[in-house]
């Protein structure tokens, strides 16, 4: 093994991995170009393809030839670039997260991509790719190395010339790194039942399918593949009316098939994505770190300093909630993704146990203070107004259709009224029931939402300001919309529809030093 302060290269397989990833971005123009040229003359097409492959190979070699990195006792330094030589330097005590990502190609070649987050917004340092051992060693050096004497010195004094200081011997164990640490959570295969209930993924899947057919519908030979030819008012030469009876059976069958396909597909997707999920707490350079690793074909391992965690949210979606599940996200500062999911959708008991473990206290189960009768009145009133507007619009449309189209859909406004009223009032009541807040020893806890409920626990330490908003109607009712500003997560936590006195009391209690002097 070379000495620690020597510049190190990327793995040799980089020369294979980077052209593939370069090519993958350019695959469509390449195929189109080669195909276009090949139609005129097959030889030229072949030459074009070979030429592009060679260019890609040369481009792929450049990172391997030009990138070097090293870890000094105080800094991570990376040099890269062919014409523009750049040197990236990151202080080790500013390294906040280390991600190891490998696609299928990476895994086949035994390499991985390393991304180092330093708390600067665009400051991810990427090393694509390192061998598995080198990556694990780098991760350990960045986050977990026992600080050597020179590294524990106050770094502020001479951060810049640290690279010239000779690196003393460091007690980093060479060779494969064993997974030591306390396992906080592990994937339980019974959680797979939540996969088909994830409406967000369903929307993404439908959107993807729609985009696919939108783009390629011209190219699919419907007539030849499934034997359907649609002409003016006729299908396969027979009038459309003769198919309407068939549709009565076909639509339910199609729906059942779609549900089954979705159930199976989402479960397979779930297995591939979350395979071997583990959340592990390890001892880091300064305090503990959390590491989450998962994946079957492509694997991801994310390590985050626990000191950057300012809170967490637990989200209960509409269907998932009925099945007793919830999502757990962290609120962190200074990471690339400040709202990272800790687990896939899991039973609420698991979410609350893991949440309690990470938050350090049982903030999610803290008893909440409701916001009094006024929000309920407001939500019911809004629900009634909404239904009234929806119904009258439908009524007008129905009359218009009736007058001009001579088609009286008298049941339509009635249906809108009944269904709309039911869901609007249900939503209003749920929104009111879910509304609440609490202040525990270290956390501000807020719950809000109607069909999707979000419970947020934010460290009062992490609150960096308050905004109290009162619209005209708010002032008449004496309610206020409170925002706790924070650098963590989505950067703000809303406490909606709080009585003003409660809002002031809450802000005063959460950040006494700041607010108390302004309370009249």
């Amino acid at each position, binding site marked *: 093994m070379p000495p620690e302060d020597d510049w190190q290269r990327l793995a040799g397989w980089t020369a294979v991995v980077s052209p593939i990833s370069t090519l993958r971005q350019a695959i469509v123009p390449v195929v189109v170009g080669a195909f276009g040229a090949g139609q005129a003359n097959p030889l030229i097409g072949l030459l074009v393809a070979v030429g592009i492959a060679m260019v890609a190979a040369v481009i792929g070699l450049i990172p391997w030839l030009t990138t070097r990195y090293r870890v000094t006792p105080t800094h991570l330094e990376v040099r890269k670039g062919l014409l523009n030589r750049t040197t990236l330097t990151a202080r080790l005590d500013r390294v906040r997260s280390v991600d190891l990502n490998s696609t299928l190609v990476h895994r086949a070649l035994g390499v991985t991509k390393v991304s180092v987050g330093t708390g600067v917004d665009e400051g991810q340092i990427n090393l694509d790719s390192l061998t598995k051992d080198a990556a694990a060693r780098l991760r350990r050096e960045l986050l977990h190395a026992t600080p050597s004497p020179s590294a524990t010195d106050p770094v502020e004094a001479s951060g810049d010339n640290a690279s010239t200081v000779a690196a003393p011997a460091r007690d980093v164990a060479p060779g494969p790194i064993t997974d030591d640490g306390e396992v906080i959570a592990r994937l339980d295969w019974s959680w797979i039942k939540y996969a088909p209930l994830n409406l967000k993924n369903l929307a993404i899947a439908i959107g993807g399918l729609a985009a696919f057919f939108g783009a390629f519908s011209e190219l699919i030979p419907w007539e030849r593949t499934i034997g359907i030819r649609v002409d003016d008012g006729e299908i396969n030469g027979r009038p459309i009316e003769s198919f309407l009876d068939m549709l009565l059976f076909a639509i339910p069958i199609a729906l059942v098939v779609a549900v089954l396909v979705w159930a199976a597909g989402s479960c397979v997707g779930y297995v591939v994505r979350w395979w071997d999920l583990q959340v592990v707490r390890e001892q880091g350079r300064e305090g503990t770190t959390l590491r989450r690793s998962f994946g079957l074909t492509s694997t991801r391992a994310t390590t985050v300093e626990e000191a950057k965690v300012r809170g967490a949210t637990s989200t209960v979606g509409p269907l998932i909630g009925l099945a007793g599940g919830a999502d757990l996200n962290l609120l962190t500062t*200074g990471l690339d993704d400040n709202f990272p999911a800790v687990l896939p959708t899991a039973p609420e008991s698991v979410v609350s146990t893991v949440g309690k473990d990470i938050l350090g206290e049982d903030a999610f189960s803290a008893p909440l203070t409701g916001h009094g009768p006024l929000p309920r009145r407001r939500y019911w009133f809004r629900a009634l107004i909404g239904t009234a507007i929806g119904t009258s619009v439908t009524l007008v449309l129905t009359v218009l259709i009736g007058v001009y189209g001579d088609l009286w859909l008298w049941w339509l406004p009635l249906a809108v009224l009944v269904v709309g009223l039911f869901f609007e009032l249900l939503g209003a009541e749920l929104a009111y029931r879910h509304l609440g807040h609490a202040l525990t020893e270290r956390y501000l806890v807020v719950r809000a939402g109607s069909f999707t409920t979000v419970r947020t626990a934010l460290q009062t330490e992490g609150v960096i300001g308050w905004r109290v908003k009162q619209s005209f109607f708010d002032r008449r009712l004496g309610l206020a919309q409170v925002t706790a500003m924070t650098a963590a997560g989505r950067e703000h936590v809303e406490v909606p529809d709080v009585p003003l006195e409660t809002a002031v009391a809450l802000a005063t209690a959460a950040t006494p030093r700041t607010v108390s002097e302004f309370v009249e």
Partner: protein
Amino acid sequence: MTSAIGAVFWLAFAIGAVVAALLVPSGWWTWLIWLAVVLLLLAPIPGLTFVPSVRFRIHRWEVTEIAVHVRHGWLTVVDEIVPLSRVQTVDSTQGPLMRHFGLRTVKVSTASSAGIVEIACLDDALALEVVAKLVAITAATPEDAT
């Protein structure tokens, strides 16, 4: 002042609507276009008459050793409090109109994108004084700003 600029835009829209009303062939929709013209002409009136004074009456600010507190708005009233220990940058801006009237806006930003607080349209000299004071206090508070 901003409402005056806004009024110019509304006027431009109104003129556009008049042109449209004259150019578009008349039909049942003609009265709708004239209605739009009237509304566009009426729209800036509150902004030119009583809104500025209401805004001015509501707007207040306070900088202490510990925090900045600003209240602004007219229909919706917003109170903002940011402790100085969490302030990251202090800016002051001055547009051409503001320069003419000798005004300056002080902008206090924190580590949160939701945490930007503006003290709008202070007297130039006062604004610079506030900036100097804020910078002095925030520099003296050693806490981490996140």
